[in-house]
């Protein structure tokens, strides 16, 4: 998927969880990504973060620390 599209989608998710009360936003973003993003997509996101994560909401970067690396 194009990097722009991936960044846009990840940031949309962050925007929602940011608006929720409490301080678990990063954990909930990570859970959402783990539940709905196929391994290839998570890998692409993690790779992007590894190279600086340009364009990503800081919360997404925070969340990726808790994101399980795809099995296989």
């Amino acid at each position: 998927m194009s990097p722009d599209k991936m960044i846009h989608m990840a940031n949309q998710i962050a925007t929602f969880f940011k608006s929720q009360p409490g301080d678990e936003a990063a954990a909930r973003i990570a859970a959402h990504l783990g539940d709905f993003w196929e391994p290839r997509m998570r890998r692409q996101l993690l790779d992007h973060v590894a190279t600086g994560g340009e364009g990503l909401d800081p919360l997404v970067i925070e969340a990726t620390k808790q994101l399980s690396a795809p099995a296989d």
Partner: protein
Amino acid sequence: MKDFIIPWDDTDKGTPAKTGAPVTLTIDGFEVTVPEGTSVMRAASEAGIQVPKLCATDSVEAFGSCRLCVVEIEGRRGTPSSCTTPVAAGMVVRTQSKKVQKIRRGVMELYISDHPLDCLTCAANGDCELQDMAGAVGLRDVRYAAGENHFEVRQNGEANPRYIEKDNSNPYFAYDPSKCIVCSRCVRACEEVQGTFALTIEGRGFDSRVSPGAANDDFLTSDCVSCGACVQACPTGTLQEKSVIELGTPSRSVVTTCAYCGVGCSFKAELNGDELVRMVPWKHGKANRGHSCVKGRFAWGYAHHQDRILNPMIRDSIDEPWREVSWDEALGFAAARLKGIQQKHGRRSLGVITSSRCTNEETYLVQKLARAVFMNNNTDTCARVCHSPTGYGLGQTFGTSAGTQDFDSVEHTDVAIVMGANPTDAHPVFGSRLKKRLRQGAKLIVIDPRRIDLVRSAHVGAAHHLALKPGTNVAVVTAMAHVIVTEELFDEAFIKARCDWEEFAEYAEFVSDPRHSPETTEALTGVPAEELRAAARTFAQGGNGAIYYGLGVTEHSQGSTTVMGIANLAMLTGNIGRPGVGVNPLRGQNNVQGSCDMGSFPHELPGYRHVKNADVRAIFEQQWGVEIDPEPGLRIPNMLDAAVDGTFKGLYVQGEDILQSDPDTRHVAAGLAAMDCVIVHDLFLNETANYAHVFLPGSTFLEKDGTFTNAERRINMVREVMKPLNGYADWEVTQALANAMGANWTYTHPSEIMAEIAATTPSFAGVTYDLITEKGSVQWPCNEAHPEGTPLMHVDGFMRGKGRFIVTEYVATDEKTGPRFPLLLTTGRILSQYNVGAQTRRTDNNIWHEEDVLEIHPHDAEQRGVKEGDWVKLASRSGETTLRAKITERVSPGVVYTTFHHPDTQANVVTTDFSDWATNCPEYKVTAVQVMPSNGPSDWQEHYTALATRSRRIEAAE
């Protein structure tokens, strides 16, 4: 095999059923007990005594005009009509006496004297109540000489001024005034059942005639929506299906379910041999209660359309013409390619798309193909592009994605919110049921950018129409909550008992912030604050409040958030868990609900259980004897992205046309073109098939057994009415493909597939074909706790325990208007066509909708020099297309609207790849566009038409 023709009692009891306290009376010496308010006629019928009748039928209220149904009642003078006389306790009725017989014969004599006596050649011969009644009353001679009448074309050598020619304008039924007995059943059916008010009785006395629309109208030009209710109600051959005129009266019938929309109407398919003669809505159908719309009733001709492909076809590459081959060769070819792809590109390089048009059993097998044969979770369904946000939003708040009510519930609703839905077009039978309730006095709030028909139509109107700017749903819903919370209109007792109070407190604090007030949000939503306040008050204080919503809610980048906002509103006002209330997603296609239930989504197994849960996987691993991938699979848009990236290479698509139905056509085309094996399993060479390597012919809903699940979670039987023209039902084809890949499946009937579903899925545990057949239909959850199914959800508590209020912050979509694209495009559908139109376009329904048009406000049109009917170019950052303009005030200035039923228009060339944050459901409902005059098709349209023509070539068989 079992005979599925069920001996239901279809007797016309003359007047509608009532629900009052029991009343006991005596009819011809027999005691009978019926609810208060029942007519004597119906009471007699309950006792097995049919009183002769003409103007009464049990689909409409009695009118009492023919006087054929007269009876004698002890202690009452004269001979009252039994259809208009309500029962009373202790009443003693005689339905047969010299006196009433004489009256009845006189009545019949008068009718017959103005009726042509060509019964033997009449299309209604054998199916005519006038004939039956003439027999029943013992009419033996007609003493009146034919004087002035309505049926002779010429009289005394001159044209008969009373004779009116047959009206053949409607493609599906004819109106022959010469046979009309002016019983007004049709007029009442159009008013009471359909709610369209297209028919009137013109003139008085002997001169009175049924007339569609205004003076110069025929059926086609009138308001008639061709639902067929009047045709069913007509006791004579006056209003008659053209298929019956052509093919003769049917001799057998099979009860089945409409395959068009999510209402899921039950029909009787009436046949001679294996030739379908007509589809008649079944009065015991619990979703439709005997009503239907033009699609299910009449638009079934596509089953025999010449375009239907009946033999499998293959080709090495998509530039080649198709080659017709045997089933074995096609399946062998497909299996070899798929296996080759997996060897080269890995396990996750293949996927499937299940169909919301196919049965539950078929869908179940397709996702099983992905999970148990491809060994991955790459399965998705077109529900992705419509109701996936409902799944997520309601799942988060209530604990299940299911709609909470049955359709009957609307009969108890006092205030209905219809949001982002257009029921009279997209869910017509529900639309009619809602209108009926509105005519009884319920209030309506419409939240939609467009002035849909419900806002103002015959005898109903909306109390409030919040014509919001596309993309501001969350702001409007949150502002309504603001009013309800700050004006303290919420149902504290309900919230305390049923919801998490702490979460409510947080939520209340959030919505109370002045930035959510209607006054503040007015600037962005375009909804006047006072109007919004008034609507919120009406909803909170008006009694039973129900929310019905459609794709105008879900197909947004904040679709899931809006669904949560709707759930919040229902909980705030205590409108959950009883008749007349609830949150009701109106599903698009017939089996959207079912395809979701059956595990079509890449992250969940059947019954909405996430694949990450080892205990759930274990159930299926044991059943299937394979190991299930614990990782979620790709969703449709992700599959296409992966295809463009080169890691996704093979796709099996059952009964969907993603090229036409999914957004950003060019991206879809690029994804499909990048794959090595696209298998399309469908009735026709659809648009997606232009990019396919294997075509497997599909079967229609008339040609297979199975079940559909409608928007009420109601599991309805689909029954094989005739044998599949292509040789195999769709479930057999999927099984053959799986077996060609080495799966060794051995289903011999869909009931065995349902048994497997029941064995693995708790909410279906109690479902069997026998139970559905016995009950007519069953609403899931159906299990030990609810052995007969569940009409209303969350009655004693929410699925998830406590209902959860979720904060819904409005976020503007990134799809913004600007100087290049100053208008907002939103999309929808119309009554006569269905989704991508593959079926309806192949019927006479085209008479009502030949092409997609662009609705534009006069102000915007004038600015651009666009006139009614002009070709215009519609451009967005994704692409452009051309279509004709229709100038109308239904849309607000700044908003344009179109449908997407026709492949030539390709409205989705224009839609973008933005999607719902939670589910990737595409943002169909908001695209920034520009409109300008044009003189012909866009480059893409021309390019595409050429490609489609080339791609559809079929090599002549040697």
